[in-house]
């Protein structure tokens, strides 16, 4: 990646000249298109019998054991042949995948390990992209380490103004849950990468061409930060790094953004209105912003949380009901709410697919689509909202054609395969040279 000519550098090299895209396509042989990564997080697991092929006849469990134990003992054992199978859409929750079947792969059988001592919902979200081996992180109750998006961005993020972006469609106004329920992107243990959740603010922040230049201030505050260090204890000096990193990032951003105004103008993105939108439309406005950021090269790495974990407060799924509903509360009464819950699950898959279709319609310089150049992963930190299991998580991968990924398959991983094996495989595909990520045991063969 480092030696290749990125599209971004290429465009900057033209110094803002007004060449149209068709002419550029003539160079497509030499142009390497950037690789991207997106993680689409769905909270509170799924109803298994609607999602996992082979489990459709399983009876429902209204509640189940903690994350640390395997799935509920009263369930019948199902033989699941491991390995690769053609993906056939027989499950109701997966129906929306149909139009994108050839570009998606269902992956089942991946596990995380629960570390006793923190809430299952909080841990399943905050540690989803990190899954450090239990008790490896000292001084923390969370098996939480630098998350995959940041590890990848360390490698491929320096090309873009923003190394990573985190989006969240959290609809709640009451601040009743802690940060661990509400974030999947972390710089490291105890160091949150907060997400953006207001479409207009996101627009202002990412696509507003008249951005303030803070460089005058940053040089002064950096001098302060340096003299500040001497006053601090060991632990605090360590924490001050977040400030230096922040300033470095902002300065980097300002330099990079200078060369991008032409490209951002071409997006023709309209500023989102602040009026109320039905749930699905709201999610898609957020998806539009994210896709535009990926397309324009504002970032190559992004996370997208459809909603936070737990959070009992009801909210409106306009497409499903005219009454506010609590996804979490319903998940504890699967037998009563199974139809509604499966509608919610299907609704989330549909939102995912709509986003994929948008990415697939955007053609890159080499003729392939934005989706083909992106690894896009749908997933949840719970295998089921009722059993709260950390094993056999619902994972769907899409795109990545340019990195050798093929769709239309269902891959069943052998029992006990860490989710981190998939994360390692993705990191490698995106150019990270390492042989271990979190608690991985090997690279998942996708």
């Amino acid at each position, binding site marked *: 990646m480092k030696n290749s000519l990125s599209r971004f550098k290429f465009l900057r090299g033209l110094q803002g000249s007004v060449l149209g895209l068709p002419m550029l396509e003539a160079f497509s042989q030499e142009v390497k298109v950037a690789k991207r990564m997106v993680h689409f997080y769905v909270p509170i697991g799924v109803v298994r019998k609607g999602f996992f092929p082979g489990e459709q006849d399983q009876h429902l469990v209204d509640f189940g054991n903690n994350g640390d134990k395997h799935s509920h003992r009263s369930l019948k054992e199902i033989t699941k042949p491991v390995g690769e199978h053609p993906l056939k859409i027989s499950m109701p929750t997966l129906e929306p995948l149909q139009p994108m079947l050839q570009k998606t792969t269902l992956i089942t059988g991946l596990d995380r390990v629960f570390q006793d001592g923190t809430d299952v919902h909080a841990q399943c979200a905050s540690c989803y992209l990190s899954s450090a081996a239990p008790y490896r992180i000292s001084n923390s109750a969370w098996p939480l380490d630098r998350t995959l998006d940041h590890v990848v961005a360390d490698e491929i993020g320096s090309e873009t103004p923003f190394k990573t972006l985190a989006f969240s469609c959290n609809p709640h*106004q009451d601040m009743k849950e802690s940060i661990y329920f509400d974030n999947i992107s972390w710089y490291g243990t105890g160091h949150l990468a907060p997400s953006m959740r207001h479409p207009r603010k996101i627009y202002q922040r990412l696509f507003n061409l008249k951005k*303030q230049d803070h460089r005058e201030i940053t040089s002064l505050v950096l001098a302060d930060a340096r003299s500040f260090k001497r006053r601090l204890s060991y632990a*605090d000096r360590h924490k001050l790094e977040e400030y230096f990193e922040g300033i470095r990032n902002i300065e980097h951003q300002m330099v990079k953004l200078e060369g991008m105004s032409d490209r951002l103008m071409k997006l023709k993105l309209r500023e989102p209105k602040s009026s109320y939108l039905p749930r699905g439309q709201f999610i898609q406005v957020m998806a539009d912003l994210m896709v535009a950021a990926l397309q324009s090269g504002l970032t190559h790495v992004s996370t997208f949380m459809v909603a936070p974990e737990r959070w009992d407060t009801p909210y409106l799924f306009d497409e499903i009901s005219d009454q506010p509903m609590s996804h979490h509360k319903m998940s504890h009464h699967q037998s009563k709410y199974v139809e509604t819950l499966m509608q919610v699950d299907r609704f989330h898959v549909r939102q995912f697919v709509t986003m994929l279709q948008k990415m697939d319609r955007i053609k890159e310089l080499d003729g392939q689509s934005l989706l083909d150049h992106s690894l896009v992963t749908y997933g949840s930190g719970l295998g089921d909202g009722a059993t709260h299991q950390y094993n056999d998580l619902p994972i769907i991968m899409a795109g990545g054609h340019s990195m050798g990924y093929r769709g239309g398959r269902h891959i069943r991983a052998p029992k006990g395969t860490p989710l981190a094996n998939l994360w390692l495989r993705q990191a490698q595909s995106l150019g990270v040279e390492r042989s271990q990520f979190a608690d991985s045991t090997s690279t998942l063969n996708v």
Partner: protein
Amino acid sequence: MVLFGMAEAQDEAKWEAFARSHCLECHGGKKVKGKVDLKDYLKLDQLASDLELTKNLIEVLDYEEMPPEDEAQPSKSERSNILGVLERFFDSTLKENRVFAQSPMRRMNRFQYSNAVKDLFELKTMVFSLPERMMRDHSQYFNPSSGKMPETVQVGSRPLGKSQMISESVFQDVAPFPQDLRAEHGFDNRGDHLTLSPMLLESFLELSSRIVDANQFNSRYVGIWDRFFKTPDDKNAVNVLEQRIGRFLQRAFRRPVLSSEIQPYLEFSREKLAAGAHFTEVMKAVAKAVIASPKFLYLYDDTSENASTTEVSSFDLASRLSFFLWGSLPDQTLLDLAAKDELLKYEVLLSQADRMLNDKKLKRFTDSFPTQWLQLERIISSRLDKDEFPFFYKARYRSSMHMMLEPLLLFETVLIENRSVIELLNPSFTYQSDWLANPKGKDKFSVGKIPFKRREIHDRRYGGIITNLAVLTMTSGSKETHPITRGAWLSTVVFNNPPPPPPADVPPLPEKPAAGDENLTLRERLNQHRERSDCAGCHDKIDPLGFALENFDAMGMWRDQYENGRQIDMQGKLFRKHRFDNALEFKKAILKEKDRFVRGLAGHLLSFALARELDASDEPSIEFITAQTISKDYRFREMIKAVVQSTSFRMKTTPAKLVQHLPSKKQR
């Protein structure tokens, strides 16, 4: 306490014998209940490696929570003997090696930032609206130096009332960064929640510019305008730079500033002036940088150089005091006293605490501590069933906007009038709107400025932080009460003993009874539903507290029967000691344990003041605050003064190098 060899050996033998006969059956060897395993802690020096565990042992033995009721009990003297052994051991171990947990460096939260900016520039307006300040004062009633609350106050509910966020005087075009979340069982000032990311830092830079460039940022609204921003009469403006910037930095950074720290700012402004920039604009640029500087944004204690625990510096103390009571920067008086090292003197510290408690800025304390302590933000999302509780709704509004204000006004009154904190539990008065005084009546329901009148409480079933409509409603579901939620709230808030989170595999009770269960009481249904024996440990503690309030329905209204006609069954025993048969007796039972409430409140206050979780090393401070409060007739101001006198508040452990301490808390 000095231990001699003989006594030590005896204590050792006593502990092992006691543990073997009363603890090990369930907590070691074969069974490990409640994740407490004592098999490797039969020797005292083994216990020394886990003081947290030792503290818990003392607590459960002292409060007679262990051994469980249905097991053989140690005799009274046996119990007090072993408590003596453990307490002696705990105190002497702590004395040898008292290492405080470090409050990690943390950026100001949104509330503190807004206050600090206001105080630094002496703004005559708010910077931005903050919904986290739940109660709005419409009649300037808050006047702590008067020692008296007026008979009537006009207040509004920011999150739920009408137009409570807009007409406030704030800067235009200055949007705040997102509200900070509260830690589980804690406050919104904790280090692990208050980190900086590039995105947040960018918002801070943006915010700096927006504030200083706002239209109202001028001589009319900015108190320090003439002292800092105004072009000096002196033709040679450069002369005043050093003095003005030096003073400003010292105030913003809450510490003495070295000339080397002023230098970059001086150079910057000299260059700008030389290049022909306008004086005020140059000073504005300096101000923008200062409020985005890490020295302004971060709260921290100076490093104590070596590993040992030391007294805080006088400037640390000034900041601890002001962020505790004013949610903001120390004022010039505190900084001056700190500069002379006067603040470290006991009498000075106490008189300053008094001065601060008399200052109107104390409102920041009552705007943050009580809502978070009582978890009142939960009432914002309470929505009762429209059919069953029609009078919960008032046109487009919810009556919860009145409810939330009652406990807050009680809290402020007890503090301002320096009354006994026990009145938080059982006051003889309360502040109520007309609606609260008669929720089913037809009185006018105000939605903007709401008059609250001081009223005598004749019916003692109501009144206090427990039995008020806000708490009773927010701990219920939309149709039915949730006794377990109420019990957990009581245990956490009133006694500062939060139950561990329930295992995720236990389903909540359905709101509607299953077929065939229609004639059961809630308690009977719950007993049926709770069969697992490992649940009993916690539920024996929290359930009686919650069921005791069953006479109050999901909106806090009195009832004698359930809808199915069965009598409410609320009887129980508080802490296995005090029997109660009705709501009044329950209140009396709680009052019998009032010192335990004081102890709990001491912990909440200290944890808020230190912005961290407490641990075993803070135990002596909790004891001190509790004892002080009791000896001073439980007066609230005395209690707060005891907090700032406690060793935990005046000491710190902030080593410059990485040191491995004796683990006071183990991962279990």
